[in-house]
């Protein structure tokens, strides 16, 4: 399973991008469950000025989400991939 996070927006406006392949990883099971859960969209919201927006893509499926209303699986997955306190 390929998992990708693309971040845009934020006060800085500086984008970020990270991806991983779960093949062969010891935590693949955890990641698969997390990714599936993250694909469930949160509530729609108006754009938050300076909030980060994220596109999470799991294989061919993409969900869009944005701060501050990320679901817990989305938050955890983003933190795991971007490794910078998302």
């Amino acid at each position, binding site marked *: 399973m390929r998992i990708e996070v*693309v971040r*845009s*927006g*934020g*006060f*800085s*406006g*500086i*984008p*970020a*991008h*990270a*991806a*991983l*392949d*779960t*093949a*062969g*990883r010891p935590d693949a099971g955890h990641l698969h469950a997390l990714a599936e859960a993250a694909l469930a969209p949160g509530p*729609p*919201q*108006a*754009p*938050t*000025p*300076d*909030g*980060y*927006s994220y*596109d999470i*893509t799991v294989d*061919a*499926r*993409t*969900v*869009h989400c944005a*701060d*501050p209303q*990320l679901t817990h699986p989305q*938050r955890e997955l983003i933190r795991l*991939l*971007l*490794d*910078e*306190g*998302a």
Partner: protein
Amino acid sequence: MGVFCTIVPPHVLDALARSGDATLSAYARRTLEHDARERTRRRLTTVIGPTLAAARPTGVPAAGPSDGPRRTIHDAAHLDTLPGTTVREEGAKPSKDGSVNRAYDGLGATFETYLKAYGRHSVDGKGLPLVASVHYLKDYNNAFWNGEQMVFGDGDGRIFLDFTLPVDVIGHELTHGVTQYSANLDYFGQSGALNESVSDVFGSLIKQYSLGQTAEQADWLIGAGLLAPGVHGEALRSMKAPGTAYDDPNLGKDPQPGSMSGYVSTSEDNGGVHLNSGIPNRAFYLAAAAIGGHAWEQAGQIWYDTLTGGSLSTRAQFADFAAATVAAATARYGEGDQSRAVASAWQQVGVTPAPGSAVPRQQPGEQTQEA
């Protein structure tokens, strides 16, 4: 571990956005956001009513809002629950936590600048309490306005330091609140870039007011002191010279354009709101530099009149905003150096004011008291 994490330049992301399902997802996202935005606007209209920026003549009656801020700082304790635990209220002695005190002081500086320079009581003009949360999440590289309060991350220490450090960042976020309660510019495309630019303009003016600087003395930087040691850059944005704030192996080069010839069309970041804001940012700098003296006094007053005067559509484009600033300059100072400086500034960044799009609904002289 199979993880690769890079910060990539926007043109690479654009290529990503154009590939595969991204177009479809972007379309769905726009639809969702548009619907949510409409709901927000309807709610706001019922809250603030049709008369934006209510007139408050000189000599505020006793029943008016207080001339002092009402601040509350919370500690989010590295979680995502807002606002978190109350750690400092108005009038309380300083905390041992530097982030708490910087947020408190920055809210105060912002309140004071809006009051003294423009006669505005807080972000809504009616004394709205100012709420901020610090230590949002862990190593979080951002600060934002969530429609009700300010939120600050600590930064990861590698790229960004604590977001409470630069007072212009605090002023920038609170100005998103001012915009929400006045022109309520749509956070998308050119109106979104104007929303961002207005926050940079007043964020910088709050810093300049605090330091007592003239337009010539000011650095015109946004986020100076926010980049971690070792990052090649002096700030996140330069209003004077967009595109020159940083040039770093990890961050890439500051991609902001300073004129319409460099306007960026993109689906990312709500249509490039943090990119194209460089164009109106530079227009403000050019106007302020030409007028001279303290930028918050005349150039700032013209932009403030434009933002709060009621003539702007929520979907105002650069040309509409430009026309409104020229009209505001003329309404307040007559045909003269100020209106010519403003018109020339927009011309220099390649924006032609839209004809007949800006007629002030109020006489600006009725709106504010002079400091």
